[in-house]
């Protein structure tokens, strides 16, 4: 990654200018052209380094979401993970080193929909879900520091 790319990532994970031409504004501040900024962002999106340029919503303010975990025998994990992945409502799904070894985030338009999906997942996979809804947020979400 070159300096311009690093600066883009470090400085614009928040505070996208709310003007008609946000990318031109960013380019002006970084001393480059709008075309180059757009080209870099497009390429990063294509290669998957960035998922998008857009909003991160505060949980609980719109829709309903939860962190769910399952304890799945090792040899069945891949298959159960695939079953979970098929749900549109799932956006993150990871294996983790614990008896509860499958961890996924489920997001739905409302609580009723969310509860229905969780019940359906338990029924389909045959494993109980540990449902861990968020109660309070402590971190200050400024995006991710590339120095970590």
């Amino acid at each position, binding site marked *: 990654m070159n300096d311009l790319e690093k600066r883009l990532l470090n400085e614009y994970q928040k505070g996208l200018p*709310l003007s008609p031409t946000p990318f031109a504004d960013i380019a002006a501040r970084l001393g480059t052209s709008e075309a180059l900024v757009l080209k870099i962002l497009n390429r990063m999106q294509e290669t*998957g380094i960035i*998922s*998008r*340029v857009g*909003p991160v919503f505060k949980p609980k303010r719109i829709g309903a979401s939860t962190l769910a975990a399952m304890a799945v025998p090792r040899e069945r994990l891949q298959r159960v993970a695939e079953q979970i992945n098929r749900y549109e409502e799932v956006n993150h799904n990871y294996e983790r080193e614990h008896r509860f070894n499958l961890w996924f985030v489920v997001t739905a338009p409302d609580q009723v929909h969310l509860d229905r999906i969780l019940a359906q997942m338990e029924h389909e996979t045959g494993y109980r879900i540990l449902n*861990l809804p*968020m109660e309070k947020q*402590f971190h200050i979400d400024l995006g991710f520091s590339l120095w970590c």
Partner: protein
Amino acid sequence: MVLSEQDRRLIVEIQGGLPLSSRPFAVVGERIGLCEQAVIERVSAMQESGIIKRLGIVVRHHELGYTSNAMVVWDVPDERLDEIGNILGAQECVTLCYQRTRRLPDWPYNLFCMIHGKERDRVSAYIDTLVEDQGLHDIPRKVLFSGRRFKQRGAKYL
């Protein structure tokens, strides 16, 4: 802030990202029948009211080389939750810090934080230092490193 039908259409339109073009808000507006200025005003209102936490580039840690990700879970006495939550949430390399519901007897942990790093050893060392510096030895914790990543994409809220 109460979301109107128009706001919900706007959220559906932008939750997957803004178009990477010169006039992204104008493009979004065209799709949902709002003028550019109105889109900017509504997004700005959502940001002010806190519905939108931040607006900008959303990175994918794994693709950036941050392949080691640890979810650290803590069993914090209720009366110390705010104090410790605020300490952990303010650490530069802690990307998320949430209180979540305990589920006894299976799950005693009520505070979750996420730490991303390029190497597992460095993440472990970072956690050790954090525990040491902040005097958190007496708080039971577990470190759950990630294994396979089965899915990762932005959330669809509506």
